[in-house]
């Protein structure tokens, strides 16, 4: 099964004398055949629905959420298990884990239809209720969807941290915020730890389509709990390890030491023909001119039928040279993703400055973001930026802040700021 993943490395291998910081982008693609063997899914699939039914959901939102849940349950294939947790001040397991047979689906749909909104928001308890269900099927492909519309109760801060720690690695979860009363940073933090995506559903009527997309993506996953393994030479240091495409996820802090020189980072489940890019920055001991050293050996590992599989080995090299023409060059792909990370930072800090009332700073940062988005061909982000600023010249990043910005436009820009474009090859 070594052909399940393919890797490619982009870097400038030439390092100037005395330096030791190596940057490299690794592109990983899962092959057509990944998961073709059904044995990969011997543990089955378990999909969890975690839905906010606090008082603020009342009205159009709860109606839309109930409809979307009914549709979702209806769509589940019969070999997939599912459960539903509804969230208020405590998480309530509305339907415990069961296989999606027509009978079970009908019972779950009936239960969902009875749901009434009320109470407060305490996300830690919802996650714990979901965790209990996921613990029943440790070998399954474990994925969930969390929907909320409001910010979490202030006193849930510590319990949420503890709950996330328990849930880390136990399941993956995509997070969605409906309306504009939720906090982007809060959901992003949950989704980051649970290796999921974050997005805004501005209007309740868009919920159904979005839920369907999430389920389709979850059902497309064919190999779970894949880790990125990185070997580095003795005495070196990993300065960072980030997923940079399709969106930026900093994995540096998620490192698990598996040997004296080997570390692993979680990447979650993979579907067929999926491509992701990772950016490594490794500091090695500077060598003498002419030395050639392996600065990193990266591969993807996953367990299948209790056998560890390893694929997509990629090598990151360092060759010391005194020829500046070689070492001063920055690889195009590395430069592109350095720019995209900078773009995300500029947007987040720019919106922050705008919220604080520091308009000069906000104009400068968002202007820079427009310039970078334009130059790198990140059209989706540029379009979202145009909802927040009037662009006078995209090339130079000359912008004016808009006086009236819809809250949902600002939140959409914030949540999607980490989405990157891939560099145009060739």
């Amino acid at each position, binding site marked *: 099964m070594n052909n399940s993943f393919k890797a490619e490395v982009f870097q400038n291998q030439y390092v100037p004398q005395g330096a030791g910081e190596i940057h490299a982008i690794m592109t990983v693609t899962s092959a057509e055949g990944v998961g073709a063997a059904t044995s990969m899914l011997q543990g089955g699939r378990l999909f969890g629905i975690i839905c906010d039914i606090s008082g603020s959901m009342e009205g159009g939102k709860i109606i839309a959420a109930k409809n979307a849940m009914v549709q979702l349950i209806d769509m589940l294939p019969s070999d997939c298990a599912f459960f539903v947790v509804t969230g208020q001040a405590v998480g309530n397991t509305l339907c415990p884990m069961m296989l999606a047979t027509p009978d079970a689906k009908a019972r779950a749909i009936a239960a969902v239809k009875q749901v009434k909104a009320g109470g407060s928001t305490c996300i830690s308890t919802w996650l714990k209720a979901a965790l209990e269900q996921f613990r029943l099927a440790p070998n399954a492909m474990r994925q969930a969807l969390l929907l909320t519309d409001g910010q979490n109760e202030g006193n849930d801060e510590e319990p949420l941290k503890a709950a996330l720690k328990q849930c880390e690695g136990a399941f993956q979860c995509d997070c969605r915020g409906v309306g504009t009363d939720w906090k982007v940073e809060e959901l992003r933090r949950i989704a980051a730890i649970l290796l999921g995506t974050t997005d805004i559903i501005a209007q309740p009527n868009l919920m159904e389509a979005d839920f369907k997309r999430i389920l389709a993506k979850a059902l497309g996953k064919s190999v779970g709990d894949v880790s990125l393994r990185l070997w580095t030479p003795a005495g070196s240091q990993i300065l960072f390890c980030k997923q940079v495409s399709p969106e930026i996820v900093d994995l540096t802090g998620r490192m698990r030491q598996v040997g004296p020189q080997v570390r692993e980072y979680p990447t979650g489940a993979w579907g067929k023909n999926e491509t992701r890019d990772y950016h490594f920055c490794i500091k090695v001991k500077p060598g003498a001119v002419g030395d050639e050293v392996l600065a990193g050996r990266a591969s993807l590992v996953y367990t299948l039928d209790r056998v560890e599989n390893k694929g997509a080995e990629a090598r990151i090299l360092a*060759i010391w040279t005194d020829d*500046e023409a070689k070492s001063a060059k920055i690889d195009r792909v590395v430069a592109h993703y350095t720019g995209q990370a900078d773009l995300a930072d500029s947007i987040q800090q720019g919106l922050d400055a705008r919220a604080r009332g520091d308009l000069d700073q906000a104009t400068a940062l968002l202007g820079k973001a427009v310039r970078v988005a334009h130059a790198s061909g990140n059209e989706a982000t540029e379009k979202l930026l145009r909802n927040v600023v009037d662009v006078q010249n995209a090339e130079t990043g000359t912008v004016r802040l808009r006086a009236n910005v819809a809250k949902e436009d600002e939140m959409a820009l914030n949540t999607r700021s980490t989405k990157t474009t891939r560099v145009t090859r060739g």
Partner: protein
Amino acid sequence: MAAFHACPKGHQSSESDFCSECGAKIQGAPAAAANGQLNAASANCPDCGAPAPTDGSIFCEICGYNFRTGARGQIPMQTDTPPPPEPTPVAAAPPDAAPSPEPVPPAPVEIELTVTIDPSLREPNSPEPPADSIPQTIAVDKSVALIGRRSETRAIFPEIALDLDTAVSHRHAILSRSADGSVTLRDIGSANGTRLNNRDLPPMTDVAIHDGDQVTLGHWTRIIVKAKS
């Protein structure tokens, strides 16, 4: 495969290409395929016995044997040698030989650059230089320093950043110190050129510079070199 591979630094490596301890390249290892997967098929060069390249290359890494035509290889090529500088300055870095000895640590020469704006250098079409700027002094402590203009999108962060002067190229010139302590300047193909003591520098050529030299570039930037040994 219990056999260990001997690393040039004396470690026992469990990997055959690069040492599993320190990452040093193992002699006779297959060509460094930085990309893609390992090829399971391994063959040896019929000419010199080195393992055949696994990265799809048709030449033997060691002797240059052509696997496709069977043509005999030549002397191993030095790919890392920089193009020889034309008018060789007194002490340019020697082209690196294959088993390069430990380089002598550079003699402690202190280089200080004073960056000034000199409106008299201005061309008729140049923009007005900023009137309120004061000379900047930059101590060059690295053995190699890039002179240029910062670009965040292109991730260019020069040691000597002349951001105010838009006629300076992002990657304009390089100041480097060779092992014996001499300092050279090389224009790396800048758009508007570099002048040393009022004479144009040929691009991509190392030129020795000394205490008191003046480098002018861009619209109106003048750099005065101060070297103390």
